């Protein structure tokens, strides 16, 4: 790209971000005529200026240099489901998209193929949500042993090629976020929220990714259905997590009572509110019933349950997710990128919550190609002299 093109691009992005030329000049430590010269292509942008421009506009430098890249498609400000912008999540996802761009440039792509979801008509959001949920349900295996959250996350990675990162977010108000672009579908979940809500947020973000409604980045601070896109994602999550047939089966077995409602929450690992909305979606209760249930809240349901076991099972759903979960597909790519000198150990260490120096040592020891594990095992066979010897090297 020449100076002219870069200049035009900076001006467009500056205007899109709503930043005044004088404010950009101040951030760069130059006068307004300097910015004018840059934007008209009369002078080249120095490398340290490029980074400062990107920082001021809230974008990646690659968005300026590569107008056709994923980074250029990401919004200058995240499209939030509420008016409050969450810059820390936006920065995090932008940085991960940058790493993706660097790895892709060296042909380090995800090993697993993405499966193309059906094309939907987003104007008919309810039908679209049902269609997408039916498609996803065939590819997602919920495993109660591993937990519904982890099994959904694993299925998204293995079956759909969508990375899932769970970590404590700097902004505790953000529930989750997603890059919905098919080039790098990525879901981000804030670990600092109740398990039931985290599961619904994960399914909600999956809905956004599969809907591919033109947005490239979504950030959720709540899950209210303020527009068609959010309603579609909510309906998708409800369909996927609480299949109609299974709900009807529970109601048939237990009857329409508090125990049945508790069973629905436990079986599907969802919150009281999600369950109530789902019952209303399915026409099992009407709007008045929904509002009545919402007014008595979760505490009202708990009070109706006699069994301590049932109550404990429901209270567990309110425990904080509180776990760091690295994105498996990106970790695989980072490991390949690390060994090829495309990325340093730092992004890996950060995602794996490891000390970078310890990780360097660990990864260096794996480079020892001469290690013969079969030989080591064969030559190590044979009895010890005593039981004490056999347990002498037991790790703590």
């Amino acid at each position, binding site marked *: 790209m020449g*100076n002219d093109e*870069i200049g035009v691009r900076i001006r467009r992005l500056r205007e899109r971000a709503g930043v005044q030329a004088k404010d950009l000049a101040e951030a760069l430590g130059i006068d307004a005529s300097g910015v004018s010269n840059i934007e008209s292509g009369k002078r*080249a*942008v*120095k*490398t*340290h200026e*490029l*980074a400062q421009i*990107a*920082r001021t506009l809230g*974008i*990646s*430098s*690659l968005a300026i*240099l*590569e107008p056709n890249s994923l980074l250029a498609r990401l919004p200058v400000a995240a499209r939030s489901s509420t008016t409050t912008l969450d810059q*820390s999540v936006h*920065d*995090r996802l*932008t*940085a*991960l998209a*940058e*790493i993706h*761009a*660097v790895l892709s*440039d060296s042909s380090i792509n995800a090993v697993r193929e993405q499966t193309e979801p059906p094309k939907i008509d987003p104007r008919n959001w309810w039908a679209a949500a049902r269609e997408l949920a039916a498609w996803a349900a065939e590819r997602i295996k919920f495993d109660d042993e591993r937990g519904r959250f982890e099994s959904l996350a694993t299925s998204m990675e293995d079956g759909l090629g969508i990375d899932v990162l769970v970590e404590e977010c700097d902004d505790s108000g953000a529930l989750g976020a997603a890059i919905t672009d098919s080039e790098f579908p990525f879901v981000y979940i804030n670990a600092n929220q109740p398990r039931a809500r985290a599961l619904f947020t994960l399914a909600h973000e999956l809905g956004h990714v599969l809907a591919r409604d033109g947005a490239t980045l979504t950030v959720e601070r709540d899950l209210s259905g303020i527009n068609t896109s959010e309603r579609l994602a909510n309906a998708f999550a409800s369909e996927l997590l609480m299949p109609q047939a299974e709900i009807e089966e529970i109601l048939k077995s237990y009857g329409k009572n508090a125990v049945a409602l508790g069973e629905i929450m436990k079986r599907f690992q969802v919150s009281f509110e999600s369950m109530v909305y789902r019952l209303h979606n399915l026409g099992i209760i009407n709007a008045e019933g929904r509002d009545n249930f919402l007014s008595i809240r979760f505490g009202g349901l708990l009070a109706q349950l006699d069994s301590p076991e049932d109550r404990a099972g429901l209270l567990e759903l309110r425990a904080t997710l509180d776990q760091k979960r690295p994105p498996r597909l990106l970790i695989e790519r980072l490991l390949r*990128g*690390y*060994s*090829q*000198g*495309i*990325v*340093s*150990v*730092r*992004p890996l*260490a*950060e*995602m794996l919550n490891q000390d*970078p*120096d310890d990780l*360097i*040592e660990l990864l*260096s020891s794996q480079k020892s190609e001469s290690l013969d594990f079969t030989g080591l095992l064969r030559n190590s066979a044979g009895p010890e002299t005593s039981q004490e010897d056999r347990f002498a090297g037991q790790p703590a």
Partner: protein
Amino acid sequence: MARPVLHDAVTLNHFGAADRLDVLRDRHAHLDEPRWAGEVKREIERGVSPVNPHCKRVLEEDWLGVPFEISPQDQKAFLFIWIGLNEGRRPPDQHRGEGESIFLAETFDGVFATDDNGAYDFACNRPKLGRARVIDSIDVLQEAVAMGEISASEASDIAIAIEAAERSLRPLHRGKISPAYFQ
């Protein structure tokens, strides 16, 4: 033509803290330029303060020559290195000096000198550099001893002075510093 050595700020400050920049000068001043990147100089300038007298010492070393600035045409290639050096929590805002130095070492067929373990390890994995073209302060001191420019005990004293200034050598060297380590 001799391969230039691109010095990272950490290594320059190490020798500055030990007040032995002469060792670096004797080892590298006769080699080709560039010897440092623009951002390395700026990082050291930002560090100048009464509690960091070594920064001023580094900036007074004429042999380092004119710091090299990355040209606008090379911004994308540099940016890819810089992104790879950062942890990925936000668009890169750290390790810029290391990134510029690695880019220049590759471009000028040179050697990268750093004591930052992450940057050292990354550069060693870079196909254009490899382990043979990445050095740290201990490598410089060992070479100086091998060339008869300083004694092994002098090298050990310099390394101890670096650590005494609360500056870190790479983990590989920790707890091993003695004259024997440089012979």
